[in-house]
């Protein structure tokens, strides 16, 4: 390999072709002349926007703090090495239940955390877009579910989602572009448990190819999905939207850390200050889109405070950084006689959304889904040591039985709570930027959901004959909510189009705009919102409303 992991790769009129070892794609470069849009972050929010806006003819520069990988040559089958995909910069976590940050809730790569996401691509339950009005909790989204349904469809096509032919929950949906993958043994245990308990289950709609598409190979069931897919079967933003953006004339700047959004005397954004190649630079832009996810997005907005906007940019509502939501990620595990080898294949091949769609029988608000699991060895050892308290001989003995361990894990809806928030600490990081402080505590609602979900999942495992079942209570996954969208400027940071109420040429488009997080993994919804935002920007541009 000629290049080092630490190199800036997007330069000299070219960017890496993520689908070809040593390959390059031509890239247009804008210098630091004003562009129509500078996009901060190239994950599930930023990458679709870069592609769609460039295709609409706008000049676009998309920046990411992380490197630009070619998975076929840069990724190893090694959990420790692959932690290079995570955002492990300093943060301060506090509150009653501090969040563990860095792996399943962050990403520092071109493509963002989709480079190592679990690929689970579920749609929100339609009612969850209006949970306040229909179900009495959380907040309503300012977008109608039917409109989202169309954008979900677009994203499912772009990502070539492999999914079941008939999906048991929710309104009828069109057929997934590719067929579901075969179930691995871990998924079979979910299916058997669900059948024994009399509830529906399905093959998980998942963003990894079950047939070759273009230069991407089909999934080889290697199982290293959440540490980065070296096959390129995983339909990350890196291998889908980013090449599309480059072909449409967008410029991607890797290893470019944006530290501040600059505003002019009229209060409008004029560009971003970013750190790249050892120095601070300034990119001028007619509009700025922030897509840094639920910690970096509010961090950047708060760090961009001005004399006119002393509490942070776009923060007249005081809600920037507030209502941080995690998703519950508790699990139940057990031992079985069969050799399960749950790490083979994508980790979550079977799903039940039963408790997303059923409201009766709950002593809490919100929904949750649960999926089969496939932890890799280091992760499993950490789970046993941290989640179960095993150490020494006990831990070694349990690791010996790993091939017979089987588990189910939830993705559960945490409710928005203004006290859970991102603020700026006084300490600074390697760029000299103030470190985010992430404050998080569970409410009784989350605890009730955890209790119900872990009991249910444990029952499901027992129904398949699993023994020595136990519950892992500590984990969280996915973030959202720190720059929520809404119906008016006092109760939200952005409108339905992800446009800031306060700064008309500032847009925020990632998981932080979620008013509620629902009981499904967020990446599909983030990309759907990004596509909608792109369409709205194009429409407003045509009407002269930008």
């Amino acid at each position, binding site marked *: 390999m000629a290049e080092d992991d630490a190199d800036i790769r997007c330069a000299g009129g070219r960017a890496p072709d993520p689908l070809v070892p040593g390959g390059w794609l031509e890239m247009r470069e804008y210098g630091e002349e004003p562009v129509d849009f500078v996009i901060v972050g190239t994950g599930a929010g930023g990458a679709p926007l870069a592609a769609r806006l460039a295709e609409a003819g706008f000049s676009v520069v998309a920046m990411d703090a992380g490197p630009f990988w070619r998975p076929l040559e840069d990724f190893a089958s090694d959990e420790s090495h692959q932690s290079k995909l995570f955002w492990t910069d300093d943060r301060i976590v506090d509150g009653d239940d501090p969040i563990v940050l860095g792996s399943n809730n962050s990403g520092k790569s071109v493509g963002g955390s989709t480079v190592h996401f679990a690929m689970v691509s579920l749609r929100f339950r339609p009612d969850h877009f209006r949970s306040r009005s229909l179900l009495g909790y959380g907040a309503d989204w300012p977008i109608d579910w039917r409109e989202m349904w169309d954008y979900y469809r677009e994203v499912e096509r772009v990502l070539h989602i492999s999914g079941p032919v008939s999906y048991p929950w929710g309104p009828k949906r069109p057929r997934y572009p590719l*067929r579901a993958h*075969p*179930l691995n043994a871990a998924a079979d245990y979910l299916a058997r448990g669900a*059948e024994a308990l009399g509830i529906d289950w399905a093959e998980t709609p998942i963003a990894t190819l*079950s*047939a*070759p*598409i273009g230069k991407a190979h089909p999934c*080889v069931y290697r199982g290293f999905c959440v540490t980065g897919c070296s096959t390129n079967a995983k339909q990350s933003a890196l291998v889908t939207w980013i090449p599309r953006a480059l072909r449409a004339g967008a410029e991607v700047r890797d290893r470019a850390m944006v530290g501040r959004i600059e505003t002019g005397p009229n209060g409008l954004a004029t560009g971003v200050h970013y750190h790249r190649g050892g120095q601070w630079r300034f990119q001028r832009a007619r509009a700025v889109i922030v897509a840094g996810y639920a910690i970096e997005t509010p961090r950047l907005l708060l760090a961009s405070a001005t004399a006119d906007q002393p509490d942070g940019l776009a923060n007249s509502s005081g809600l920037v950084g507030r209502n941080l939501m995690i998703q519950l990620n508790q699990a139940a595990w057990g031992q079985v006689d069969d050799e399960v080898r749950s790490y083979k294949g994508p980790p979550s091949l079977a799903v039940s959304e039963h408790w997303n769609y059923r409201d009766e029988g709950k002593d809490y608000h919100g929904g949750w889904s649960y999926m089969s699991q496939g932890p890799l060895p280091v992760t499993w050892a950490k789970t046993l040591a941290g989640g179960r308290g095993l150490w020494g001989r006990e831990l070694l003995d349990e690791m010996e039985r790993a091939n017979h361990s089987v588990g189910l894990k939830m993705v559960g809806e945490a409710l928005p709570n203004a006290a859970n928030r991102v603020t700026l600490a006084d300490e600074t990081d390697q760029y000299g930027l103030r470190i985010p402080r992430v404050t998080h505590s569970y409410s009784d609602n989350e605890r009730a959901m955890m209790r119900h979900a872990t009991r249910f999942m444990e029952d499901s495992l027992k129904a398949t004959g699993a023994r020595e079942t136990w519950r892992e209570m500590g984990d969280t996954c996915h973030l959202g909510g720190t720059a929520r969208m809404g119906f008016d400027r006092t109760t939200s940071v952005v409108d339905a189009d992800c446009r800031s109420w306060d700064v008309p040429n500032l847009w925020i488009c990632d998981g932080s705009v979620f008013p509620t997080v629902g009981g499904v993994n967020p990446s599909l919804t983030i990309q759907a919102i990004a596509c909608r935002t792109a369409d709205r920007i194009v429409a407003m541009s045509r009407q002269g409303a930008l």
Partner: protein
Amino acid sequence: MRGRSLALPLVRILLRIARPASREARAATFFTGGAAVLAGSVLADSATEHYRGSFRNPAMVLPLLSASASLIINGGGGSFSRKTADVVHVAAGAVGLGGLGFHAWNVGRQTGGYRLGNLLYKAPLGAPGALVLTGLLGAIAGALRESRAGAVVPRLVTGRAAGAVVAFGLAGTVAEAGLLHFRGAFHNPAMWLPVSIPPLTALSLARDVARAIPSPATPYLLAMTATLGLAGAAFHAWGVSRNMGGWRNWRQNLLAGPPIPAPPSFTGLAIAGFGALLLLKGRTHG
């Protein structure tokens, strides 16, 4: 090796057709040729797939043995005794039927039973049927060789029987290709070909059997189907190359990619179809 097992019977067929012989003898050659190609396809396909399944059940070796015997008998073109040949044809039928039953049982006992996911990924329900077809075509060829040359009634009966077997076999193979190509989401437009041309061939042949008069379209459709079977193998070889590591990683990708030996079963059936046409055509002026 796989290439040779397919090429040999084809060469024999061409040699025999060139030689002047009775209509029955020529038809029999088509049937044995078709049966040999089919046997070769079954042998290579079940060998790969059952190897992939680690021969977990000892019975999984049976189709390999049976298809090998059928390949030898049919490829050997009458150099074996009728009795030996009959044993092999009957064995092929029995192993094939047993396989159909076993595959059906195997799918049925999976979680969710006969739900689509199991039909797509577990033991293919129709595949052992190819071995039954091999046995039937071989047996028809044997019966033909015994029959008196020029006898109008047996010619019509065997022509119709063989035509029905081929039409039915084509329909089954189309179903199998359709199911598995659906599994691949028809990601390459060429994947529609085996569910477009062979069904027409099967229909045309079935109509010929019903009317006892070959239509002029059938030979063309049979020729296209035979060609498609070989083209399919080439397409599948290309499909193997699209898996991670391509042909360099052949040991894994031959198992993971589309089955190269499967499409030539269309070729085998189409060759046998020509035999059926020959008999139907000759029923009045043989």
